């Protein structure tokens, strides 16, 4: 009886995305024998330690545990979950938690927009439909499409091409490294065992400045999901939002659960949908963060439409300093969705002088192809940078 129940319970967990292996089920059966049936909390803890392997799974596990081991009827419903048939009647579980669990059980988008999604988005599983979605501008998406786009954005690969570093890594296929071989011989002086190494390729750190002013709203929200995915896969991503003030949100995005991460961001950032003070924010970044973050060939991403409320004289020194301290600057601009876009605003013209890449970002395809774009023109950057620093030096010379 217990074995059967455990099996059902493990299947519920699997539906919720916690992959429990048969071996773990067997092991949890053993734990029952050891722990006994005296205390519910002990059993919960024992099952959790056997079946889970990530902290974030605990929330879902607790909900599933509470519902399964107290109300078999609800559990049955969960097993055959067709969302419409479930009415959250269980009083012990908070409504929100239940909704969360149910959402995770179903493959469909969130319940709040479910009806809408059924009406407008009946092609979500076909291949060509996904292609269309990938080419659709975020601004023109329906809310159901937008939710799906956010999910896809979470899974896009890291867009930075790897950089060759001067550090070496042991590799049997590499060249013989004389220094390491000799060092090794100091431990074992009678044995020559050549050590092979090759140069290490590394993804450089990424620093992102994301504009969250009113004109950027939808793009910013999607980019947050994209950046959350990036932060999870690549350790060295630092993210800032700026509107009227600069806020570091790297830590919020480090949370594995996208919902919690974005909620933390929303609590932390106070200037959503306001104006933009590009110059002062860049200046603040230069003063407080650039030194620690822009070392070691970091790539700086500026995600903004460049429409600054006030173009001040301090913008040029700020962006110039930024371009000198970062390895390169990538400007992702949603305004490029207009085919006839001309950089006429003075702020945009100014920024363009110092930016190495000027790329569109208004649909998923652009985000997915970022790596190709960034690979294309890498070589020319060093030259540009050299000439830029040369210009700066010569102009300062003239001033003196």
């Amino acid at each position: 009886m217990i074995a059967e129940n455990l099996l059902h319970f493990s299947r519920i967990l699997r539906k919720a995305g916690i992959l429990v292996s048969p071996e773990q089920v067997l092991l949890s059966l053993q734990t029952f024998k050891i722990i006994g049936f005296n205390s519910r909390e002990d059993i919960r803890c024992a099952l959790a330690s056997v079946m889970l392997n990530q902290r974030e799974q605990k929330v879902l596990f607790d909900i599933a545990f509470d519902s399964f081991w107290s109300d078999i009827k609800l559990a049955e419903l969960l097993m055959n979950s067709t969302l419409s048939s479930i009415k959250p009647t269980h009083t012990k579980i908070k409504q929100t938690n239940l909704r969360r669990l149910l959402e995770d059980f179903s493959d469909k988008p969130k319940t709040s927009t479910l009806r809408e999604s059924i009406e407008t988005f009946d092609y979500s599983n076909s291949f060509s439909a996904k292609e269309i979605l990938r080419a659709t501008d975020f601004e023109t998406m329906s809310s159901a499409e937008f939710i799906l786009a956010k999910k896809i954005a979470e899974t896009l690969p890291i867009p930075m091409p790897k950089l060759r570093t001067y550090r070496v890594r042991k590799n049997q296929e590499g060249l013989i490294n004389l220094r390491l071989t000799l060092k090794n011989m100091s431990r074992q002086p009678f044995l020559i065992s050549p050590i092979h190494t090759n140069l290490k390729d590394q993804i450089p750190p990424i620093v992102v400045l994301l504009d969250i002013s009113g004109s950027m709203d939808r793009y910013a929200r999607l980019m947050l999901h994209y950046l959350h995915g990036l932060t999870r896969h690549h350790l060295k991503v630092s993210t800032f939002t700026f509107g009227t003030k600069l806020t570091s949100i790297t830590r919020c995005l480090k949370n594995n659960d996208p919902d919690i991460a974005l909620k933390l961001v929303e609590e932390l950032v106070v200037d959503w949908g306001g104006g933009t003070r590009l110059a002062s924010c860049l200046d603040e970044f230069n003063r407080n963060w650039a030194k620690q973050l822009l070392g070691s060939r970091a790539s700086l991403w500026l995600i903004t439409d460049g429409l600054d409320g006030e173009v001040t004289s301090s913008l040029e020194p700020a962006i110039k300093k930024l371009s000198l301290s970062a390895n390169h600057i990538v400007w992702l601009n949603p305004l490029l969705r207009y085919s006839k876009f001309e950089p006429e605003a003075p702020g945009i013209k100014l920024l363009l002088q110092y930016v190495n890449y000027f790329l569109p970002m208004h649909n998923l395809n652009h985000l997915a192809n970022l790596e190709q774009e960034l690979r294309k023109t890498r070589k020319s950057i060093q030259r540009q940078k050299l000439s830029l620093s040369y210009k700066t030096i010569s102009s300062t010379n003239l001033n003196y």
Partner: protein
Amino acid sequence: MNIISPKYRSLPESIEETIQLLAKEDYLCDRQLATTLFLSLRLARPIFLEGEPGVGKTELAKSLAKALGTELFRIQCYEGLDVAQSAYEWNVAKQMVEIRLAESSSDLKDPQTRKNVGDNLYSREMLIERPLLQSLTQSHSPVLLIDELDRADEPFDAFLLEILAENQMTIPEFGLIRATSRPITIITSNRTREIHDALKRRCLYHWLDFPTLERELEIIHLRAPGIPLELYRQVVAFVQESRKLNLYKPPGIAETIDWTQALAILNTIRLSPDTVNSTLGVLLKNQEDINRLQAGDTIKLLTELVIKGYLPDPEKEIISLDQKVQSLQSKKDQL
């Protein structure tokens, strides 16, 4: 290696016994951790502990080894850690000496002698044992602590799989070494990278959280004795409140202990904004966090403590002081 010959104690029979066993070594753990630990001892599975720095992950292994009276083998992981430093190494110098001796003393043309010499070169005596191998060859189950596994390179995870699952190690030149008694393995990680699922699957997982106020009070009382009882409550309440602030690095139990000791040295009787701000460096290890607290959050936290009743209300105190002064003056006048 322990120098004092250990006195082995038997494994606990229940969760309560596990708690008591650790409490004897001044390690107070909650029931959840005790359950996981108890299970791991009974099922002979490694424990995989994750948690914020300073919540007592490493301490658990040390206390467990002391409590069970067994030896503790510790591997501190770092980038570039390899088999030679963690598991075993061939003693090449000794092998060379062996060859020379064989050359001078016996006739190497005889195939049997040659074979003997060859076999002897890769025998157990020629192995230098490092902690992983040592933990497999003890007569009584030792505690094996693999500390901060997330710092080691990913291939090291894969190397551990055999030891963790089968309690054995394969040495290509020598063969299989099976554990004479299974080591009690504790793996800790600070989550700077995700450990591979294959490894986690072989372990019991536990996330070690910050303790509750009462438990932390007990722990601090045990580990940092010698300050007034009132101050303990204030210190722990302050630390607990500060953890809610979403700091870059929230203070762990280790920091709370350090801070309490620092306050004891400074002969503090009660927390005040000045004493807190001047000793913040002991509690917080991040410049931005310190700046933030000094800029005003300290006072906010202390007012919070006043509201919750851990600190006396300064205004009321002034009033009571005023009253005292007045009463003294009136007495003086009478005299």
